[in-house]
């Protein structure tokens, strides 16, 4: 009886894992298989005629490559901005006592219960006025608003986890405040900060709505794929979907240790 329940449990776990992975597998063989695989009927569940050629052709289609470059650019600016604004604030929350700290934390949390994407609608109008419309920086500003709350709360939790005594010891041995931060705290917090950076990158890389509203000719990859949805053939769309997924899966693998710290803290 116990054996039976054990194997039913294992089967359940395996099925849920398959449910997650199977669609990714299917889009991969669809994207690499090219038109022949996509329009074949009935479909084969095994990879056939996989070729980089299809992929190269997909990338060569006007705009895809530029769009990918644009996506990377936007995501990198987002990473820099959210770390530059978020890490100092996280340090202040973790180490210093000041009036309004609780309110500040609450405000940061509340921004997450707000549909940030729709802010792009009026911003399209005012960005046009400041020359930010259709630029990487403009899109990155909105993406930073998405990523900043994470950056603040996650770095705060990182700094809380580093014993204050280490910093104080550095002061005793003659380090200045900034010096102690740079030599002692930063190296210890670096893996976590890197995870925050990766997470900000993925947030930006994946965002569709604001990117589509705020760009016209310099589309990010998501915005580009969205706007050609109705006109491009299916195998191109599948290849595009696969291209979007690959970095995300890798990134989730890289930050998996921090994933739970992130969401756990961010929820309190």
């Amino acid at each position: 009886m116990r054996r039976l329940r054990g194997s039913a449990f294992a089967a359940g776990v395996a099925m849920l894992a398959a449910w997650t992975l199977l669609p990714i597998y299917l889009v991969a063989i669809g994207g690499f298989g090219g038109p022949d695989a996509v329009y074949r009927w009935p479909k084969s569940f095994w990879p056939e005629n996989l070729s980089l050629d299809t992929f190269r052709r997909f990338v060569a289609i006007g705009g895809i490559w530029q769009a990918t470059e644009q996506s990377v650019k936007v995501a990198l600016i987002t990473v820099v901005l959210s770390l530059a604004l978020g890490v100092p604030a996280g340090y202040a929350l973790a180490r210093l006592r000041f009036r309004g700290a609780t309110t500040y934390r609450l405000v940061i949390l509340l921004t997450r219960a707000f549909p940030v994407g729709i802010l792009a609608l009026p911003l399209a109008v005012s960005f046009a006025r400041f020359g930010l419309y259709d630029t990487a920086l403009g899109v990155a500003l909105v993406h930073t608003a998405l990523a900043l709350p994470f950056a603040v709360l996650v770095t705060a939790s990182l700094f809380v986890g580093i014993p204050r005594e280490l910093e104080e010891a550095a002061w005793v041995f003659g380090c200045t405040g900034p010096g102690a931060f740079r030599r002692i705290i930063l190296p210890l917090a670096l893996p976590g900060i890197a995870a925050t950076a990766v997470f900000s990158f993925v947030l930006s890389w994946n965002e569709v709505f604001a990117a589509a509203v705020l760009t016209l000719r310099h589309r990010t990859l998501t915005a580009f794929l969205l706007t050609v949805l109705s006109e491009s053939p299916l195998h191109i769309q599948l290849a595009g979907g696969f291209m979007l997924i690959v970095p995300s899966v890798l990134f989730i693998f890289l930050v998996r240790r921090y994933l739970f710290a992130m969401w756990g803290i961010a929820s309190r």
Partner: protein
Amino acid sequence: MRRDRLLAYALIAPSILFLAVIFLIPLGQTIALAFTRHGTFGLANFARMAGDLNFRNAVANTLGLVIVVVPLQLALALGMSMMLRHLKRGRELILWIWSIPLGVSDLAAGLVWLGILTEKGYLNTILYHLGVIHGPVSWLTYETPLALFIGILVAEIWRATAIIFVVLVAGTQLIPAEFEEAASVFGATAWQRFRRVTVPLLRPSIQTALILRTVLAFEAFAVVLAIGGQNFPVLLSQAYLWQDTNQDYGVAAAYAVLIMLITLAATLFYLVALRPRAGEVA
């Protein structure tokens, strides 16, 4: 101490300034845009929005999607986090696999499921081999609204259950195993332990997960467009249509205000409905 305080304000000031500029100004602009049409203040944009043919469908589709998808996802994520708690080997691997969709963009998820659900897709291939259908059948048109709805539902469950799962796992890690063991010593069944010990202790995490997920569900956009196109209008896709295709920023802003109000109402609902109750451990 005083120096500390000054330093703290100096450190948080840039982020406050940034958030104020990027949140408050567009927020004010949205409201201003929504309530003025051709220079006159009023509800003309809202009238125009409500008078649009697709408006009722968009509201019904969005609400329907949220009401069906969020409870299903919560149940699934609760089950998954309980399974993970009892998993002995391969915990790390399963954790990673189950959280993969967290990194997948909604557009990519939509494209993935489009490939599966399309006329000559994998689903129809399976149905064909099972003898259910005899040739390619299209499920994603306006003539098959139920199939289209289920298709989008499945894609949403595949993509966005992970976020609830991760928040819940983070929450379960804070619950000492002793609590359940104690309940078990006193003769509680597995279901009773789940219902009376685990779920009440998880309530703050459940609340957070529901708020996050519901806000995002009201913003469903790229999944819907990829799978259903304009056959399945939702609020955000209508806002996008008015902004980008019709170039009518007023009506788009009216949609934005509507989405904000609905989101706010949902958040308040969860805050009240799932508040800590008297006599419970917070």
